[in-house]
């Protein structure tokens, strides 16, 4: 039956279905071509470089490339007793090349990180090779072992073997205060040296509390802005928008002036007799400064989404709740509050995402006890130049942020972000 149905044809004799599909495809390509320039630009300059951070963070090819013959010979070695003659021969020929290129120092430093004491014994071996003290016609193993007693220690050879894989997760472990122990298992850093875990926890804590403070302060004023008549609310909206548009550094600077020991906030505390004049509390360069400044700076990001949701709630709903016998509190809690939950979700997630990666404000007002993980990343980028560690920590932070971003996208949708 269906085969007998005449196909609908367009005027040029092509079946309508085919023609429509063609048009649809053309439109798709057209739309995609408009997005393509930005997408391509972002992929080249942004998305791929972030991916490159990952290769940089796990890259450990230096030793792998320096000692190819050693690792080839080590494949057969079980790693329990001293390696056989071939391993020593391989190591000797690799090391001789390094000495000729004068790059053996790098190897010594890198191996020294794996096990203490490598730096001096590689130097010693280097001197022996330079003086042609090693006779290649005799057993290399015996001669190397004579250079220093550590070359007779199997643990040093095990350490070399551990550096064989071209990729390592060591930087990620370091970011969580862990490391690979001698036997290859994962061990914890001594308790008094666990700095990173404290930083992660502090970052989470500060981001969480800043979000809570922003919510507690933002909800009432968003409600006021949404319920006041237009001409008043427009004026008050400026109080929210002006800080939003003002430079971050200007706002941080004003907090530095306000919170300093001779600053206005302390003057005020002295005036009302809360503290003695000679005992002014330190409110900057610690957590207090970070909390206060970050809350004020991120508050607009809480108020704006809340406001846009509250604006859509009809006031008659509250009136209905009250007329049905609810007290104002009950009407608020049972009717109004549940309707604002989308706004609360959007605002809290946005503030939390922004707070967790904050850098400038904590660096200026945070001091030692108020700095966050971002500051540590910047420190390793600029001061210690351990870029692979900075990349590893950056990606650990990023993965956390992306999880929240994903939740945000599911709950709110990125295209619903409201600006101003």
């Amino acid at each position, binding site marked *: 039956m269906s085969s007998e149905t005449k196909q609908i044809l367009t005027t040029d004799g092509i079946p309508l279905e085919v023609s429509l599909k063609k048009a649809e495809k053309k439109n798709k390509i057209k739309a995609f071509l408009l997005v393509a320039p930005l997408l391509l630009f972002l992929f080249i300059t942004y998305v791929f470089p972030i991916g490159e*951070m990952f290769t940089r963070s796990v890259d450990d090819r230096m030793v792998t490339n320096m000692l190819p013959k050693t690792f080839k010979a080590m494949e057969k070695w079980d790693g329990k007793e001293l390696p056989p003659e071939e391993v020593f021969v391989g190591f000797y020929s690799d090391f001789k090349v390094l000495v000729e290129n004068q790059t053996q120092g790098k190897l010594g430093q890198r191996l020294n990180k794996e096990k203490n004491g490598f730096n001096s014994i590689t130097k010693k071996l280097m001197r022996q090779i330079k003086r042609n003290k090693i006779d290649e016609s005799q057993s290399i193993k015996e001669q190397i072992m004579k250079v220093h007693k550590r070359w007779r220690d199997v643990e040093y050879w095990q350490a070399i073997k551990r550096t064989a894989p071209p990729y390592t997760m060591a930087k990620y472990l370091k970011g969580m205060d862990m490391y690979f122990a001698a036997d290859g298992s994962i061990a914890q850093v001594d308790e008094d040296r666990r700095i990173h875990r404290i930083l992660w926890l502090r970052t989470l804590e500060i981001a969480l509390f800043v979000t809570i403070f922003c919510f507690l302060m933002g909800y009432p004023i968003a409600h006021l802005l949404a319920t006041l008549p237009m001409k008043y609310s427009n004026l008050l909206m400026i109080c929210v928008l002006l800080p939003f548009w003002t430079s971050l550094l200007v706002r941080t600077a004003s907090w530095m002036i306000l919170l300093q020991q001779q600053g206005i906030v302390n003057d005020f505390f002295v005036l009302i007799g809360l503290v003695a004049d000679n005992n002014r509390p330190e409110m900057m360069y610690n957590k207090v400064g970070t909390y206060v400044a970050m809350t004020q700076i991120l508050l607009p990001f809480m108020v704006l989404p809340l406001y846009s949701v509250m604006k859509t709630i009809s006031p008659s709903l509250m009136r209905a709740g009250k007329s049905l016998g609810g007290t104002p509190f009950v009407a608020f809690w049972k009717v109004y509050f549940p309707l604002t939950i989308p706004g609360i979700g959007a605002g809290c997630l946005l503030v939390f995402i922004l707070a967790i990666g904050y850098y*400038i404000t904590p660096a200026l007002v945070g001091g030692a006890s108020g700095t966050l993980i971002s500051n540590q990343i910047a420190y390793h980028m600029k001061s210690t130049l351990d870029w692979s560690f900075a990349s590893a920590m950056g990606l650990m932070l990023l993965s956390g942020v992306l999880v929240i971003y994903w939740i945000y996208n599911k709950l709110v949708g990125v295209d619903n972000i409201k600006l101003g």
Partner: protein
Amino acid sequence: MALPSYTETRYRIWHYFYIAICTFVFFFLIAPLFVIFPLSFNAEEFLVFSEGMKRLDPDAFSFRWYHEMVYGTKNPWGLAAKNSFIIAIFATIGSIILGTLAALGLSSRHMPYKGLIMAVLISPMIVPLIISGVAIFFFMAKVGLAATHTGIVLAHIILGTPFVVITVTATLSGFDHSVTRAASSLGSNPVNTFMKITLPLILPGVISGGLFAFVTSFDEVVVVLFLAGLENTTIPVQMWTGLREQLSPTILAVATCLIILSTLILVTAELLRRRSERLRGINR
């Protein structure tokens, strides 16, 4: 917010409490900005109100730091301001062009993988700046654009486009596509239709997105700190070094100028938003 006369006392108390909280929060938001203003006219070199200022003694106030900002010897603000404006203007132009095109594509109902692509395009706004800074620095160093204006402009285009994409997409969401079809049916070619019909209608969104991009670039310090050499210093970088090292009132003079600038931008953005809503027929 007058209360009806039948309100019970406890709700009356609660209401005044609520007003008090709101007043406090508004004060908390806006007051810090006004501290800078009087202190920038301080005649002395300290960042606290001097005794003379508290007595409103005219001698305690001066334009000294504004003079220092403009004419001071070896002062970096002139170069920084020039760089900031050049970088921000080019970054804004780049963001507007790329962002508007992308928003037009994203608003088409034929666009495949809309959600995913949108998430990628917005990501520079969400990813912590320090991570963006590290990634962009690696890229610029590799292609030899570190410590150049071009490198910083490109970095700021990355950070600015999400704002343009968001605002223009929002403007296009209320856009009546039958007007462009009408133009086409009357014989206009696509480019002409865009210039004469679409662009004038979405212009408020484009400009307000551009303002966001401008402010983002003008205020951005984290990425510039990674990328900039001495020649590429910008106002935020100078403020950052100033706040970390020698805290001089010149910074407050600069900050006052920045607050005035942001007030102007805020007024423009608000006017544009209202115009856009009027054009799209949204009455609030």
